[in-house]
């Protein structure tokens, strides 16, 4: 067991984790953040994506103990019902959501892209979400949504 302290969605948190505990499971079980999904558990699908220091990471491959002292963001950080992030709004408007299982991870990969690149090309967008599988949408409306949001948002840390 080990104590880790980190920023989770902007709030300082700390908790005790097992040595081999995955960040995915720590977030789901210890912090009840269920938007982080386990689509494969082997780093191939992206449904477990979180941002660590604003970079997308597969939380199924990340040990919880490794985020000590870092900044972790999940989709809850982006917005809430009253104040949606432009990306969230654009996902709704563009029809980028079907079953929704990939959506939190997609949004986070997109958010990280827009932080670095306010005006990405379509191929840069595709590249940025290429680690996030979606079986429903064929990605097109997701790319549209990210493009639409790009002009509108300041994805600053």
């Amino acid at each position, binding site marked *: 067991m080990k104590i880790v302290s980190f920023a989770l969605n902007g709030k300082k948190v700390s908790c005790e984790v097992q040595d081999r505990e995955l960040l995915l499971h720590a977030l789901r079980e210890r912090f009840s953040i*269920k*938007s982080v*999904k*386990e*689509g*494969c*558990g*082997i780093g*191939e*699908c992206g*449904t477990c994506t979180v941002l660590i220091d604003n970079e997308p990471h597969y939380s199924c491959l990340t040990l919880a103990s490794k985020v000590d002292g870092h900044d972790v963001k*999940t*989709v*809850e950080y982006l*917005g*809430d*019902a009253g104040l*949606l992030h432009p990306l*969230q709004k654009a*996902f*709704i*408007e*563009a*029809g980028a*959501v*079907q*079953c*929704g*299982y*990939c*959506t*939190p991870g997609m*949004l986070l990969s997109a958010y990280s892209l827009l932080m670095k690149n306010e005006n990405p090309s379509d191929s840069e*967008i*595709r*590249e940025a*979400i*290429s*680690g*996030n*599988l*979606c*079986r*429903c*949408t*064929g*990605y*097109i*409306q*997701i*790319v549209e949504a990210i493009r639409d949001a790009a002009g509108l948002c300041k994805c600053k840390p």
Partner: protein
Amino acid sequence: MYIGNEMNRIDALDKVLGRPVYAEDLSAKGALFGCIFRSTRPHAFIRRIDTRAAMASPGIVKVLSCHDIPGENLFGIIKKDQPYLAQDRVRCIGEPVLIVLGETEEAARKALQLIEVEYEDAEVVSDPFLSEDSTALIHDKGNLLSRRKVIKGDIEKGFKEADVIVEHTYSTSWLDHAFMETESGVGYPDSKGRIVVISSTQNIHYKQKEISRLLAVPEEKIKVVQATTGGGFGGKLDVTVEGFIALSVHHTRRPVVMRFTREESFLSNTKRHPLYIEYKTGARKDGIITAVKVGITGDTGPFASYGETVCLRAALHATGPYEVPNVHVDSRMFYTNNPVSGAMRGFGIPQLAFAHESQMDEVALMLKMDPFDIRMMNALKKGSLTATSQVLQNSVGIIETLRKVEPYWRKRSKKEDRAGFGLGCMYYGIGNTGVSNPANACLNITGDGKIALHTGACEIGQGSDTTLVQILQETLGLKIEDIVLVRGDTDTSKDAGSSSASRQTYISGGAVFDAALKMRQYLDEKGFYKGRPIREIYASEADKKLLEHNGFFDPPTTPVDPETSKGSPYATYAFATHMTEVEVEPETGCCTVKRVYAAHDVGRAINLKNVRGQIYGGIAMGVGFALMEEFVPGKSESFDNYYMPTSMDMPDVEVFVVEDREPTGPFGAKGVGEPALIPQAASIVNAIKDATGVRPFELPCHIERLKMLLEKAKG
């Protein structure tokens, strides 16, 4: 006003906030975790099972076997031939043998390793062609699951009239649904003494019935609820975790959670049927098709699942969307000891479209005709007779979909040698085949002045919730705030049938429309449309039963003749044309899909955004089917060795919606879920041929396969 628009999905807000509760997100206090011990043999008798070490392992509460089943051990959508837990033999790798229930997932999974089973291997049937004559019987009545024929006209005469004959064999592989959310669910005993199962599913009422048979309890004692479902595509139609959960709750009276890992999902979920298709087409010099003869051989694995459906649907759609006067189709589905195949988006028709569209191009080539013109010339139209001699009366939009694509086809030009263009057309019967497959819907007025819609239709990501609400809004002229949707719970809804066969918009939509017409009349009589608030109507109605209106729709079909398949198996058909541009690197065999023009006759688009979403998603699956996806038993275990399209593999897509209204559909709507996928692989294959001169006859035509074909062609 409320349909034909771009309304946002009603579930999208929750989904972008990460709030929906999928089955795996549910937990119940004191829940046990259940996992499955599975067969490692394709065909073997079970001689001994030793669970002592597992039972002694810390945190293990129970191990259940087939002997713990109080009711029927067999389930299946049509033929009930699949055991929940193997009886005395296993018939495929991955077949469930035992349920292990632990206090935690870790404990349960650890105990799995401690179970010992002694098998005596039996003869394995791994080839459907050898299955029929094999002495190894997978089921007592023999290894042929189903045989269906389609006979129309005089096939010999048809080939005699032909000036050219094209004959080829096509084959396809197993595919996984690869929904992003694996199978999962939770169950618990409720205060009324019932067993409740909440799961990721496409059909709650069917599962309620199967569980009641499994446990030998009346249906009222079982409640099934659909959790938010992370994709289905046919793979959550069969009973997955639900039976195991119910049985475990029955024995422990404790809440039970189950969730398949991705590896388990790959191992145990049904697959797309591999089909071997022998196809012979005859045509006159002027391009008119005179005869089509098709032999289909399918491999359903050891259990029927949807094998009969695929056998029949593949046969009925074998000619494609063309009027063919002389048809002979012989479709057979065999049991083997391979993976269980079941329902997957299109029920065998994407495989057949690959064949019939390749044939169209080959016939055109022999006749030196444009592939577009030959399709146009033979396409079904109003008054045409289908292969089952059904007269198409209405909503026959195939020619219109061809016209949408025509300008792009005519102007196509290869910027590079390696580019190629291909067409793919399809038609698809909406709903189940030649049988009654109704949906119910119920509306009632609530005390707070709203209209509640109760439906058993399962939203699996395709957007049925939004579509049904829009149909209701349009009929009643109500704003979204005035509507409450109560969905996916056997307690609150009557059967709406499965979310499959592209049927929910048409059939559940029809049921909602029916209920809404009755509600509209009631509201009208009560003065609602003259400004009287619903709340007041509610309050003034003495007999609260009058506040409820039931809707029902069962598409008018006739059964098909068992010998010839003559009949009207579907009330309506969807039609589509895809045109695809590819680029093939001659050195490597790498095929990139650049652009797709997709035209679909959906009858009426209730929600354009959803229709486009279905088409894009279908195209993605079609790209996977054509170029990447192949489930290889024993090798494909997860996403690291099963490749499916990412954002980088998607072409640009232009969608054209054709609305040839279907008179029996709600506001003219048909369906689009499966049609979106069906012609895509076919159009890619034709584009590859155009680019390289080489025609793939086996799917997927992945990079190694294509490279080999190109090398062989070079000599």
